[in-house]
């Protein structure tokens, strides 16, 4: 069973349906016991970093996620959920993340030329940086759906794929059992479902 962490940020209906579409049971939950019993954890998120980080901590779920990841349980952060895995974010100030993967969240506008629109919204190609189990069913150059104005910087060797948007923007990161993707696999058609299937099979 896959636990989708519900900490009051965004809508989880599509994510739950997408996990069911790859033949896995998904439970949306904020209950520590349910999350502890899950085989794997999905950390979703949309909106602002500061607000999401505060809700994750305020609900006590930040500790649960860290604890479970520390025990080796596969964890996948999606979009803002990926950004929360990093050490800190510079979105409207400076805010602390979960620190499960090294790196910081920075504004896209600082690294792309004028003329590129913000947010980076739409389908962009995955360019692999190193092998990842998440991409076992996906070929380089296949497209996934992005919506974001900030990106994961300074992640060094944790970066498994990037997308080109005036600069190389981090598309996915990974360190041992902790995974993150900036794009929305649950909105990326068959390619996205293949990525979720690979995560479910870890």
């Amino acid at each position, binding site marked *: 069973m896959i636990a989708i962490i519900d900490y009051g940020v965004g809508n989880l209906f599509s994510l739950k349906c997408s996990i069911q579409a790859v033949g896995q049971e998904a439970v949306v939950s904020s209950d520590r016991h349910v999350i502890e019993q899950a085989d794997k954890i999905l950390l979703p998120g949309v909106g602002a970093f500061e607000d999401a980080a505060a809700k994750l901590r305020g609900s006590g779920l930040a500790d649960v996620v860290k604890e479970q990841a520390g025990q080796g349980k596969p964890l996948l952060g999606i979009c803002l959920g990926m950004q929360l895995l990093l050490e800190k974010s510079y979105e409207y100030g400076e805010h602390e993340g979960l620190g499960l993967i090294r790196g910081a969240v920075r504004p896209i506008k600082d690294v792309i030329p004028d003329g590129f629109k913000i947010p980076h919204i739409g389908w962009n190609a995955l360019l692999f940086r190193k092998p990842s189990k998440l991409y076992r069913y996906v070929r380089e150059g296949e497209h996934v759906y992005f919506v974001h104005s900030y990106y994961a910087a300074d992640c060094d060797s944790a970066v498994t794929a990037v997308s080109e*948007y005036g600069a190389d923007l981090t598309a996915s990161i990974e360190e041992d059992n902790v995974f993150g993707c900036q794009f929305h696999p649950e909105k990326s058609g068959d390619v996205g479902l293949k990525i979720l299937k690979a995560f479910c099979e870890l």
Partner: protein
Amino acid sequence: MITKRIIPCLDVRDGRVVKGKNFLGLQDVDSPVELARFYSKAGADELVFYDITASAEGRAIFTDILCEAASQVFIPLTVGGGINTAADFERVLNCGADKVSVNSGAIRNPSLVKEAARLYGDQCVVLSVDIKRVDGVLRVFAKGGRENTGMEAIEWIRRCVGEGAGEVVVNSIDTDGVKKGFDLEMLEAVCNAVRVPVIASGGAGCIQDFITLFKTLPKVDAGLAASIFHFGEVKIEDLKKEMAANQIPTRI
């Protein structure tokens, strides 16, 4: 490289997909859920569900259909029609919509865009504008294109983007249903005015119209159409192949 998006629009009334010529003379096409699955398979980059129901019963049918579509189709879904309050945003977001488009609702309620952007983020708020030339001036029309608001279109779009609209759908009433191509002049004016994604709507009649759109105006991010897709006059697979052959960044 980011790709140009192709977006079929499904006008839904009483649970069925319809499409009018110049917004009138509605004709039944098919089941919204079936069409959504069909388009997703064919390579549509996104879908718009437009609720043109007036009754409360119809609205409930619409949200049921939206939930059903969202549980089977895993590409971005935008919902429009009958969006007047933040509660309307909530209603459709809970059924799996990713973005919500506002049109007459934003005209009636000037704080709607700002409030929705604050609650759900800019990326969630799509401004849809029906525009028609009146004495050479681009004017915003309300109520499905029936009522001239008197507002100048570019000024209106700038204001809404300033308040948090994350994308703009430009629907030219002058070219809608005519099938002679998109309104390039109107689209260029909008692209020059704002830095958010611009979606072209109204006027596509054949594959070449999309090629001309993206070649002439590289700043346009997406092309939206309804009947030419529903009636199979333009097949999305063929369209995307032709776009790629013309060096337009395309997801195939």
